[in-house]
């Protein structure tokens, strides 16, 4: 390793975790997800589900349907070896759940990147993750740009289609959202967690469009795949409570 590269490596190692948040402008043109020091490595999956914008705490699913806390061992191992976490979370997270069992939360896209991940999928996932952060900040224009760039790199990345659908949903473009969910669905065939999320978001779109029966069947489909799907449970609760009149 030459001197300059060593200096780079040292600077990277010294960098605080806070530097992960790039400037707003950089976020547009450069995906500058920093490689954090080992102690700050993102866990392969979140032990506590992140609160979502459309999911008020009052309607959280009952505790027994929430995902179980993540076992610590595989994560520790990943830290010690300074290796990227395995795709799809820990082996426990990826095991096939018994029928009726809630699937573990699978929300970290960066954790899906491993040394075996093809480069363009890795780059695409990072852009999807960047777009997700922008979406969480309700910066829809840049979020859309990120997701579209991620598709430009790897058009088979299903997460980008899902989040494009989510962005359109949050902007009230329900038909557009449903269209992207059609694409996401066909690409999530092997991934029950995300397939359930796709059905749940489809339910949300139908509910917003006022097609309550179709919303209910979509939620039901999501819950059949993943009984722990928070979005589907909340949507179903809302439908049953009839507390909202869906906009048409």
């Amino acid at each position: 390793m030459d001197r300059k590269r060593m200096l780079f490596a040292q600077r990277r190692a010294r960098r605080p975790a806070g530097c992960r948040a790039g400037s707003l402008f950089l976020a547009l043109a450069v995906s500058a997800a920093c490689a954090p020091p080992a102690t700050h490595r993102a866990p392969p999956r979140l032990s506590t589900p992140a609160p979502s914008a459309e999911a008020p705490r009052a309607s959280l699913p009952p505790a027994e349907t929430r995902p179980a806390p993540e076992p610590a061992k595989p994560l520790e191992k990943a830290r010690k070896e300074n290796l990227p976490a395995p795709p799809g979370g820990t082996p426990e997270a990826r095991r096939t759940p018994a029928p009726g069992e809630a699937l573990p939360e699978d929300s970290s896209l960066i954790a899906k990147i491993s040394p075996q991940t093809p480069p363009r999928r890795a780059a695409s996932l990072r852009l999807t993750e960047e777009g997700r952060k922008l979406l969480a900040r309700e910066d829809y224009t840049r979020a859309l740009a990120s997701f579209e760039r991620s598709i430009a790199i790897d058009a088979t990345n299903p997460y980008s289609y899902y989040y494009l659908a989510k962005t359109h949903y949050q902007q009230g473009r329900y038909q557009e959202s449903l269209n992207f969910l059609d694409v996401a669905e066909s690409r999530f065939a092997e991934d029950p967690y995300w397939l359930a999320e796709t059905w749940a978001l489809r339910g949300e779109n139908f509910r917003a469009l006022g097609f309550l029966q179709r919303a209910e069947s979509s939620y039901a489909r999501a819950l059949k795949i993943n009984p722990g799907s928070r979005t589907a449970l909340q949507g179903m609760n809302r439908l049953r409570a009839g507390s909202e009149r869906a906009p048409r």
Partner: protein
Amino acid sequence: MKKPRLSRLKIIAALSIFSALVLVGLAFFMAWYVKELEGEVTKKFEGQKWKFPSKIYSDTYLLYPGINVDARELQEKLRRLGYRLAQGTKSKGEYRVAKNGAFIDVHLHDFDYPGGRFEGFPVRIEFRGGAIERMANLASGEELFSLELEPELIAGLYDRIWEERRVVRLSEVPPLLVKAILAVEDERFFRHRGIDPVAILRAAWVNLTSRGIVQGGSTLTQQLMKNFFLGDERTVQRKLKEALMALIAERKYSKEEILENYLNEIYLGQKGAQGIFGVSEAAQFYFGKELRDLTVGEMALTAGLIRAPNRYSPYRSVEAATQRRNVVLAKMRDLGLITRAQYEKSLRETIQPRELIKVANDAPSFVDFLRKELAENYSHEALTAEGLRIFTSLDLKLQKIAESSLAQGLKRLEEAYPFLRKRGAEDRLDGAIVVIKPQTGEIKAMAGGRDYQASQFNRVVQAKRQPGSVFKPFVYLAALMYGSEDGSKRFTPATLVEDAPFVWSYEGQEWKPDNYRGEYFGTVTLRTALEKSLNAATIRIARETGVRNVREVAYRLGIQSSLPALPSLALGAVEVTPLEVAAAFSTLANNGVRTQLLSIKHVMGQQAHVLERRDIRVRKVISPQLAFMMNHLLKGVLDRGTAAAARAQGFTRPAAGKTGTTNDTKDAWFVGYTPDLLAVVWVGFDNQSKLGLSGSQAALPIWTDFMKRATEGTPVTDFVAPPGISFVDIDPLSGQRATPNCPQAIQEAFLEGEEPTATCQLHPAGGWLEKKLFPFSSLPTFRG
């Protein structure tokens, strides 16, 4: 004797009155004329002074670790983007290459993207094995996982001349630059009132003594008036008008206002079609810098360029530029604008030779296509004067490959088939190619003809031609989707159909199309009929599934031209454009999801605000299973069928496609795609002359050449089977499950539940002993 005296007096009086009247009239005229000129000056100073052409940009260029881009390719890209090779990367726009080519350091340009302004910073891009290994921000050390290089300027939309200009306030211009310009152009600017008699007399004296025009006496205000209102003609009338206008401007406006306009108006060079106007644009053009970052030497050169921008341009001659700069520096020193030390230091500054990168308009057909699209929402005035920035989907690399594949391919055809070139300039063999990214619908490249200078007819969108056999996949898709019209029969890729002469009686008429070269194959599977593009088998399928269903499928996929529900539709006896064909097949390539074609992605106004944004739009129109089955079938066209020559030509990636030849051989087509890239090629004559060649002879070689070069270095991808598809090895002769005794077996994709159950009756499996001895007897299986 008194009479004549009186009459003389009368005459004098009359003349005096007449003269007075003339003078009064002249005074009135002058007053009116001055008022008119004042109106003109006011209108210019207070209205829109300049026209800002719109600019069309290509798509951005995304880099990420692992992408197959080597140092040479990136260097070429940087060069085209106007980056300069330098010793270091201190300034924006500079890059350096490691001696062993292991990395490139580049200081990125600033750029106003539709999502916001990007502030350039230095990055290191490391390479290994022909790919990018790692990228990092050199300033912060931060590792970068993707990096977007700014788009390339493709073309400008302007009225008469392309004026490239960045307007700045006087306060943004370094005072030393202003002083340097005044020193060489109008030393007494702050002391005269628009015209400078001293300067005029001095110029006259110099010109007289040197017996030629070597010096001008125009003030800076006069120059501004000339540029604003008048031409370059050297007439007394023009000079007088210019002087009068200068006096008016000086009376009405402050020196600072005049100076600011001058600094923005002045012509400072030429970059191909683009004229460089104003000091700010010049700073960017000559030095790649903002005005505030210019060195004393660079300011001196900028000031010196005003007299003869193209003669002293450092792009043309570094020596001439250096000489001129030194003259200005000496004058600045003499006037006390710079110290002796500054002067000495500036003399030592070397002017770097630079390469002039002109806007080549490499995509004229695409730009014409955009013009038409833009005209729907923007007026000609807005497009040519309001400085819009149009961001598009175009990939310049693919565009160049597409243009050259088409031009070279047509030339090769003329060489191989001399009868094609005998027809003269009026009847020249031509073609079209359009390239689409199926998942996004982006038009990545478009060439509407072989030579834009000779013909601006854009065959991609304007040529309505018969698609011939390119239309057949719609028949097969309709058959797989709907089965027979009466609902009594389902079709699968293994369904047997009769390929023998056939007469279709329809509404009292008889239609009897022949196979290509009159060859018939008897009973064949649906796959074989498609791979070999058999007319007789195809129209039998079309009759069973119903022409209306075929038409419905074509519309569903993306054909927009009106299609008659006639039997001949099955063989493509309708008229469509290459762009429609591309759109329809990109739906198949994209697993049954139709994308709206995208050429314009964003339109930005002059103030960096987004006027229009066009997102990717998708709609699932057929099931992914059916789309996969069609792609699987069409892969066979390249692997075994009418497009097998592509494999012989060295294109080995998984790809699907279809040749197209019209019955009268006036049109030759090929549409083909990988999961990531689709291209349609059409070859023919504009006047519908007979081409006499098939799609595989005329269009396929062009497509193959394009795809080989376009996909070089990109990851190999294949069509992925969705759930609900089951694969069975099929004997292509019997259409039944293959046995170990079948001489050939093709792995066929079926909808689950539609797989054939019977095993091959033509080559039944052997007896009990054979089964025991060769339980895994391998067949020559062709995975379609």
